[in-house]
């Protein structure tokens, strides 16, 4: 057995603040949501005062709720498009592109990080100003070169929020991959160069195996973040006609616009389970790698 740096008591002592925070702000609300999810509590009406315990009735309802499936489908497409293909793909490409090019790297990193650090509400206004049907910059440009103005939020709502989220969140993946690339010993790539390996072979046989665990870490994090993101609400409000209604927006709408607190909580629980399943999937991938 390895000798640890500190005694058991000291470890427990140092863990208490963190654990109590997790308990108060994570576990307790989680249990609370589970509890409310088994009632028909509402925010107005008689059930606001005297909610009934309904057991798993809400969950049965969720599983036959067309809005739920709509939201789940849109969320999965959103995660696939904006997180996995978009942020991770673009982040990796940018990291490779700027690998060992100091000036280009600092320029691109500044630009990409800028998109990442602007407050969400500001970003939402910027994008609305950019994409507005009549006054948006993009449509002004399109019509200046003789093309048709496009009502982006109406005609391509899902694509719009996917592109938005890629723009918004690529910085994280890019930074992570840039750092990961730095960990590859230069001699590996130099050797590959000497024996005349093509770029693709260098990528596939040298770079990829070395940063695989970083890719998994990145995917697990951005998948979960993207799954629960709410910012697109500021752009489209979940519309038009629920075509950008992510699961998080559907939960919000159910609980705080239509005041069905209990039902909203049960959808949130299901969303939590989906998150859990996704996390498990990625963890199993990383475990398979190790063996």
């Amino acid at each position: 057995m390895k000798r640890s740096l500190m005694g058991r008591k000291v470890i427990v002592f140092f863990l208490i603040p963190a654990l109590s925070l997790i308990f108060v702000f994570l576990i307790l609300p989680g249990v609370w949501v589970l509890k409310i999810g088994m009632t028909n509590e509402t925010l107005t009406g008689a059930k606001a005062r005297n909610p009934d315990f309904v057991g798993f009735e809400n969950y049965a309802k969720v599983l036959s709720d067309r809005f739920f499936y709509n939201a789940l489908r849109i969320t999965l497409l959103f995660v696939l498009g904006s997180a996995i293909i978009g942020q991770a793909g673009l982040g990796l490409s940018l990291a490779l592109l700027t690998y060992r090019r100091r000036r280009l790297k600092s320029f691109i990193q500044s630009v990409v990080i800028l998109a990442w650090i602007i407050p969400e509400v500001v970003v939402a206004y910027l994008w609305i100003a950019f994409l507005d049907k009549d006054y948006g910059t993009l449509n002004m440009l399109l019509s200046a070169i003789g093309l048709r103005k496009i009502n982006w939020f109406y005609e391509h709502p899902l694509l719009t929020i996917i592109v938005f989220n890629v723009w918004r969140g690529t910085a994280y993946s890019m930074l992570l991959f840039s750092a990961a690339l730095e960990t590859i010993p230069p001699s590996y790539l130099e050797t590959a160069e000497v024996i005349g390996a093509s770029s693709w072979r260098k990528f596939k046989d040298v770079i990829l195996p070395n940063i695989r665990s970083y890719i998994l870490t990145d995917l697990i994090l951005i998948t979960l973040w993207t799954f629960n993101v709410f910012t697109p609400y500021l752009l489209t409000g979940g519309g038009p006609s629920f075509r950008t209604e992510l699961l998080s927006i559907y939960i919000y709408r159910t609980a705080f616009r239509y005041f069905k607190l209990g039902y909203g909580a049960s959808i949130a629980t299901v969303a939590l389970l989906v998150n859990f399943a996704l996390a498990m999937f990625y963890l199993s991938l990383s475990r398979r790698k190790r063996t």
Partner: protein
Amino acid sequence: MRKWLVAVLVSIVVVFALGQKVTIIANAIKGGKNTQVVDWFEKYIPEIEKDLGIKVELIQTGIKDEDFKARIVLDIKGGGGADILWIDGFWVPEFVEAGYLRPIDDILAEIPAWKYYYDSMKAMGSYKGKTYLVPASTDVRMIYYNKELFKKAGIPVPWQPKSWEDIIKTARIIKEKLPGVIPIQLNAGTEMGEATTMQGFFMVLLGAGGNLYDWQLGKWIIKSSALRDTLNFYKQIYVDEKLGDAALQMSPGAREKTFELFRQEKIEMYVEGTWFYTSVLNPNNPSWGLPDRDERIGWAAMPGRGKPQDPEFVSISGGTGFAVNVNCKNPKLVAEVLKRLLYVEPQLSYFQMKPFVSPRSDLADSCWTVNKDKFIAETSRALVKYTTFRPAFPVYPEISFQAQLLTERVITGQMSVDKAIEEFAKEVTKIVGKENVIEKP
């Protein structure tokens, strides 16, 4: 150190003891939504504060009605919230059921003006035998139109359609003669929230002799030919002939966008309530006001479908009013504040800033004789006899959402009219139960 602490504690106690405060929340904000309401409070609050020796605070929020409702509900559920709530009358039943409002019969006993309120208005504010709301104003609904655009298109004004067909015919002319102008704005979809149900859906449905609720049988109507015709009318406007802009209805902040387009003369006809004219388009509204509103904007009564058995004209009324938070600590003071707000003089002043259809007889008389507000006088005289109210039961908001969804599914072409009605019937039955619904021929 200790002295310092004592000093702070004592001053806190003193502030609490002396600084009695009454708070009022209204969905109004200076320079924006219902800006006139803020102006009015700013005029009268100092007087009341001086008179009672307390502080009266107005909490301003210029947001969507649905968001305003959520804010109030969460405030009260959390054990707080403003003392006086200026809310929509149809929220009363669900709020009362939740235990959010304080019955105000004792407060009203102190308010001399209460005896002048019309019975129908008293009914709007009461639920299960108790009163919860003092109506501040009521309204009627109609079609507004831009006279200048009509003239450009060669349509004679004043204009008064006699049937839905007349509206369609006029809209076709606008579409042909004035490209770039949306011929008609008939609210649709869930984004507009209750504004879709009241301003759009109900105004059409009533015209076909239909309703959401059968008052005699006490059942919700899930299918009827009136409902089918209503949706076909929507379909004709938004899908078949593109006389309205379906995409606009679905866009975030749709309602405010249509106000802006109407101000820019890019919408010709707009079905809306009294409020639209007296608050949104009011020359004193910096956001959407029209300086020459009285000359430029006309109104017509909303006609029925046009079949012999249909009503000639239709209107539906809502109204807002003052309710008292159940968490209110000092009802006596609230009574004093309310009493002063409801004096004739401030009420007439409010009327001048933001004219309304009056809920009380003493004001109605002085409004029509003293102020001679042409718009209110004429619309009241023409429309009050046709008007009706919503079935504002606690379950109403859920049914209303289904009605909004119904219009949305039709105007976006997601579903055929029959399919959408099928869905509506299914969902409403789920909400209220099989025994509480009815199908009509």
